[in-house]
Each structure stands twice: as C-alpha cells, then as structure tokens.
C-alpha cells in the first residue's frame, strides 16, 4: 500500500513534469532545453507516477508500448531528415516554415527531429525502468 501523500503528490508532479518537458522541448532551439532533456524529464514524470501508483498504472497512463515509442521516434527522426530530399537538398537539411505558429513558435523539420529524439528517449528509458521495476514486482 502506497502512502497517500506520495500518491497525491505524484499526480500533480507528473502533470507538471509533462507540461514542463514540452515547454523545454519547444524552446530548445533558442534557450536551454531540447528533445533529449525534454525526453529525460517526461520520463521522470512517468517514473514519479509509477512510484505513486505502481508500474502497471504508469504503463496504462503511457498507453503506448515503450518499444513502439522507440520505433515511432526513430521513424520520425529519419523522416524529418528525408523531408529535405524532396526539395533536392541533402539528407537532414533543416527546412523552416515562414510563419510562426502561435504557442509553438517557428515550425521546422528540425523541431520534428527534436520531437523524435524526445519520443526515443521517453521510450527507451521507460522501457528500461519499467522492465526493472516489473522484475521488482514479480515474486
């Protein structure tokens, strides 16, 4: 049985960490942050939630299988690099939209790349931590 304070606090902390990680991800190109840091932070959110409610609950909250997240993230990164090929530029050249999108800022393939990194880090670290924790739960 997990303590009430831990359970309640982990709810709030997890939400805060997710929001903050997205903030860090989006501002990463100009200020400290980025996909890797954001990914680590959002992993923290799920880990905190797992400490409060158990790994099974954290898995349900994540919805997607961490292994699928790794695949999706790698695919996003790869495809964001391929976009430049369609306009005749070398693989991984950054392409930018001219106008800023409200709330996100300038949208580009570079941002997409960072989103992919974010998802890969989230998938990998949750995969490891959840697997270790499942071991723990097993009798």
């Amino acid at each position, binding site marked *: 049985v997990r303590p009430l304070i831990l359970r309640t606090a982990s709810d709030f902390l997890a939400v805060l960490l997710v929001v903050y990680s997205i903030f860090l991800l989006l501002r990463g190109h100009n200020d400290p*942050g980025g996909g*890797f*840091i954001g990914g*680590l932070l959002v992993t923290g959110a799920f880990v905190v939630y797992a400490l409060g409610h158990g790994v099974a609950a954290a898995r349900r909250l994540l919805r997607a299988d961490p292994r699928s997240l790794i695949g999706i993230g790698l695919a996003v990164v790869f495809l964001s690099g391929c976009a430049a090929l369609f306009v005749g530029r070398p693989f991984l050249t950054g392409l930018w939209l001219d106008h800023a999108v409200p709330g996100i800022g300038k949208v580009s393939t570079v941002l997409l790349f960072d989103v992919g*990194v974010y998802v*890969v880090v989230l998938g990998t670290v949750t995969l490891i*931590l959840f697997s270790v924790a499942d*071991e723990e739960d097993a009798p």
Partner: protein
Amino acid sequence: MTWTILLPFLFSAAAWPLHRVLRDRVGFVLAALPLGLFMWLAGHLPLPLGQVVAQSAAWVPSLDVHFALRLDGLSITFALLITGIGTLVVLYAQGYLKGDPGLGRFYAYLLAFMGAMLGVVLADDLVLLFVFWELTSVCSYLLIGWYHEKEGARSSALRALVVTGAGGLALLGGVILVGIMHARAGAAGADVWRISALASVDLRGDPLYPAALALVLVGAFTKSAQFPFHFWLPSAMTAPTPVSSYLHSATMVKAGIYLLARLHPALGGTPLWHYAVTIGGAVTMVTAAIAAACQTDLKRMLAFSTVSVLGTLVMLLGPGTDECIRAAVILLVAHAMYKAALFMVAGNIDHETGTRDVHALGGLRRWMPLTAAAGVLAALSNAGAPPMFGFLGKELLYTAKLDLARLGHDLVFVAVLANIFLTAVALVVAVWPFFGPRKKTPKEPHEAPWTMLAGPLLLAVASLFVGLASGPFALSLGQEMASVIAGRDVPLELKLWHGLNPEALTVLGLSAVTLGLGFALFLRLRTWLAPLAALHRRAEATWGPPAIYERALSGLSLAAKGTTALLQTGYLRRYLAIVVLGAAAFVLPSLVRGLPAGARDPGVPPTAVDIALGVLILGGAVSAALSRSRLAALAALGATGLGMSLLFALHSAPDLAITQFLVEALSVILLVLVFWKLPPYRGIRSTPRRLGDLALALAGGAVMALLVLIASRDRVEPVVGRWYSDASVPEAKGRNVVNVILVDFRALDTLGEITVVAVAGVGVVALLRGLARRRPEASRPGGES
C-alpha cells in the same frame, strides 16, 4: 544496355508473386527474359572487329566510380552464354523442382544471379565489376544452400561463401591497387577505374604491380576454383542440378577466367604473370582430372572435371601467345556447352532414378533414350572426339602447347595426361549409366519431361553443329573475343582437318592417343584407380586443402570461444576494468605526447564557489570509495554528480547541467528499484587488490583530466567554436548553439546516437528477460549471474 542488367533483377523480384499465380508454369514466363536478352545480344552480331557498344553514367562521382557498361567481343560471348544457357536452365529448373513450394524463391535467386553475372561481364568499371562479382558469390551461397534443412547443404554453402568471399576481399585490394597504379601512370581522374582504359598505360613497371597481381590472382583463383582453393566447387554439388549446371560449370566459375582474360592486356605479359598463371592452371588441370576419375558420384565427377577444365583455361591465359588465346576461347565456349549439357543429363538420371552413384546405374538407354542421346553427344564433345566442338578445342590446346618454347613441351604431356582422365570421366558419366545390364534403382526409371530434355539436347546438338560448321562462329565471335583478350588482332580459323603436315599430324596423333587411352581407362576405371581413389579420400579427410579449411574453421571458433571466456566473465567490475584499462593504454600515451606543445590557456581564476564545489565533488568521490555501506556510497556519488551539474550551470552550460541533473535523478531511481536485489555489499579487504583498483582509477581519471586540459588549451584558437556560434542563428535559426549542433549541424551523429540508445534499451530488456528465465533453476544472486 542498362536494362540487360536491370531486367533480370526486376524479374527476380517478380518471380515469387508470379509463382503464386502461375504455379508450375512460371518457368515459361521467366524463360522469356533470358531468351529475349539472348536475341537482343545476338542482334549485335557479327560485331565488326574492334567495334564496341559503351555507355556510362556517374555513380559515385566523388570517387570517380561510374556505372559504365561496355559490350565487346569478350563480354558479348560471355553474355550470350549467360542468357542462352540461362534460358535452358530456367526451363530445366521448372521440371526439376516441379511441385516445390519454394520454386518462386528459387527463380528469384537464379534471376538475381543472372543479373549479377551479366553485370560482371558488361561492367567497364573495376568497382562496378567488384560489386557484381560479390553479388554472384551471395547468390551462389543462397543457391548452394537451397536444401537448407540439410546440414551438408548449409556447410557446403558456407564453405563456398568463405572461400569466394575471402577471394573477393583479395580482389577488392587488387582493384584498389590497380586504381592507384592507373592514377600514378597518368590516367585522367574520371578514367581511374575504367577497365578499357587500363591497357593504354603501362602498369607493369609500377612497384605495386606484384602485389596487385597477386591479389587479383587470388580473387580469380578462388572464384574459378583453382588449386588449392578448388575444394568448394565439388562440395557445392549439394545444390539442385540446375544450379550446378548454370553457376558451377557454365557461368559463375568462369568469372575468374573472365577477369584474367579481361585484365590480360593490362597486367599480362610479364614473367610473373606467365609463371603464376600457367603453373597454377596446370597443377589444377592435372590434380583435378585425376581426382575426377576417383569419384563415384556423377555430379562430383563432373565438378572435378570442371575444375580441371578451368585449370586448363587458366593455364592457357598464362603465356599470352595467339595460339594459347585461341585455344582458350574455343575451349571455354565448347566447355560451357557440353558441361552444362552433361550436368543436366546427370540431373535427369538423378531425378528419374533416385541415385547418382555411378556403380548403381546401368542399362538406362531403353527407359531414357533422349537423355542417353544427349549424354553420349555431350560426352563425345567433352572427350574431344571429331567432329564435335570439343575436338576443335582439344586440337587447339595441343597446338598451343607445341608452339610454346619455354614450358610447352613438358606441358603438352601434362595436358594429354589430364585429358585422358577427362575422357574417361566423360564416358563414365554419360555412357556407363545408359549401357550394360540394367540395375535396380531406388525409383523406377522413366524419361524426363520435355522441359528437362530441351536443355541437354539443344546444347549437345549445338556442340555437334558448331563442330561441323565452325566458320561462322570463328568469324562472328571467336576471333573478336580472342583479339580483346590479346589486346591485338588475333585471326582465328577453325578446321576439323588441317591437311598432311608434320605438326598437324602430331596434334592429330595426340588426340588419338588421348581418345584411345581414355577409352581404355574408362573400361578399367574401377580396378586401375582403386588405390588412387583411396589415397584421394584420405587426402581430403586428413591433409588436403578441404581438411586444412575445416581445421582453420574450427580453430577460428575455438579462438573465439577462448577470447569470449577470457573477456566475458559475467562480472560487471571485470568489464569496467577492461574498458578503463583499454582507454588508458591506448589513449594515455598520445595524450601525454600532445600535452606539452603550445601555450596553456590560463583561463579564468576559480572563484570561491568553484573551489567549494570542487571540494564537494572530490569529497563525494573519496567517501564513496571508502564507504562500507552501499547506501552511503550511493549518496556520496550523488553529491559528486550534483556538484558537477552545479559547476556546469555556473559556467554557462545550462543544457549540460540539466542533462547531468536529470541523468543523476533517473540513476538514483533505477538504483532504488534494484536496490533490494543486489548481492550483499562486500568491501574489498585485500590490500593488493585495493591498490590495483586505485591505480586503475587513477589511470582512468588521468585520461579524462588530460582530455579536458588539452581540449581547453586548444580553445586559444577557438575557430570551430566561433564558427558554430556565428553560424548558429543565420544558418540554423537557433540561438541555443548546443541544441543547434545536436539537431542541425551534427544531426546525423544524433541520429546514430539515438539509434544506439534505442538498441541499448532493447538490449537491457533482453538481458533482464534472460535473467528472469534463468532464475528459477539457479538461485544465484542477481548481481553476479
């Protein structure tokens, strides 16, 4: 011409779906492709002397590699063989593998091979040739291992791949050396790899020439199964017979011959070439001919006799005289035709009676009259009986050797000896099973379906036809091919009867001796050769090349096991020690050497806060090393990590600081999760081990400290750093240089790194699963298993 190579690959991709729709009729559709290519190629005949069809497109322009193709007398002859025999083999395979659910896959491999082989002979670029060359090895591997549920087929396939693959590596080295020599001899940049440009400069005087030639020869000798690399070919006979007939007698094994012929104008003509090629070929010719007569399996007999003929061809390419080249040209084409036919005959016998053991066969002519006819005709061509095509080849072979001053007189007897054995073998394979008393076979014999008769009959009749009317062949193909090999005009005239002059009569006499002794040997084969056959079996099992190969292979896996046992102890601390020690041993010396040069950056003097943080970091590290409880050690390490991230934050590296902090936090969580499963914390009590660990730790620390010192010293000239910070906003629209480097300037590195991260994650999970599975049976503590 590009389509000549592309179409087989496209058909290869289509073979499987087509087989799903057409079932056992798919061969008719697929055979249309090589047939069409054959007609298209034949439309270029007669190729007027010296005329070529060439085309080229840049492929890897930065390395001057071109997708260059060229059709001349040499390549068109090979391409006609590949497509012509290919058509018959595709038809044949449909009958041979009738009802096999994998037939579509088989055709996919076979047609991919056809494309690759056409690529080898049409390529006018050394690198392109090499790529196709390797592709044929891969296709051959897949086809030899066709019956992959059998252990023998798998090891034969591996053996062929290892031998030809090793030869391929040697060839790659040779190709690169030839390119270097070519550039040094003054070739224009775009022409460095162009094969047709090689002969225009002199490469033979270059100091690299012997090395380049040796490597190229190893490549050619392994591919064309020359002694002592020949042993993969007989064991490749585990492949289905269409494959043996196509790859392992008519086309792929001739790729080495093709390469020698192709490079002859550029690399040939030196004593080194002359002796290495002639002697290598002659040794192969004799040993393989004798070995062929020692076999009892039809296909293995044919395989060794193929090796012997390949040896003859190699030998003929050595001296470089007109006579030798003429003989090589005729023998090559004649052999491709009769040997493919003989293989198909052997396949028919195997398919319809269920055995390939020559002693278990007899009297089949009444049940398989057409196969028998094809077999006898092809065997006559193989034995060199007039008026078959093979007779012309043998006549030229003996003439060539007679004309050779240096080695010629000895070699002609060697050639006669080899051909006596080959004649006997040909008769054993294609005559013995059809005549004499009928023997009981595993299956009740009956004639093969027409798809399996078309190939051997057509090829055998063609051998007879070309023998009788050799003029058009000589003029349209042979002469042109010989001229390309020689690098000068070589007139070619083929006649069955050379009139009454002493030389012609000598040659005719030798032919008669060959036939007569061969026939005598055929009649007495079993009694005369019993001791030889026993010797051959013992050699293959104990000290011959195949035994050496097997021993090398098992030695390799023993060495791998030993190294693994030495390094992979299963103890994390041992792994860490190896990593740190490795880094120190390889990096430290060069770091120490690099240190004293240049001025040191005085940098900014440390503030009081810096010093305080330094004390915190050091104190954490030392108390972690000294502590006697795991929890205390963890806390101390945490202090070190946090101190470092604060240091990063203070010195304007916020990204680093955040990352370090998050990694620290996640590590702590990870450790908490596994904390109760770790084995009891044992301090190391023995002093020598503590001292050893101390030394290791100091070395590891020294590496990192020196690395940081040198890196910061080079900031005196911050070219790279300034470039990044200057280019960050205008070129990548970002003010955070660290992130811009990660996602834009060095995005490819990041892509690689996150792939590594993902793989590592999957690896951790796999390890945990293995641990969980192992635990029930062995109740060892988790940390040490």
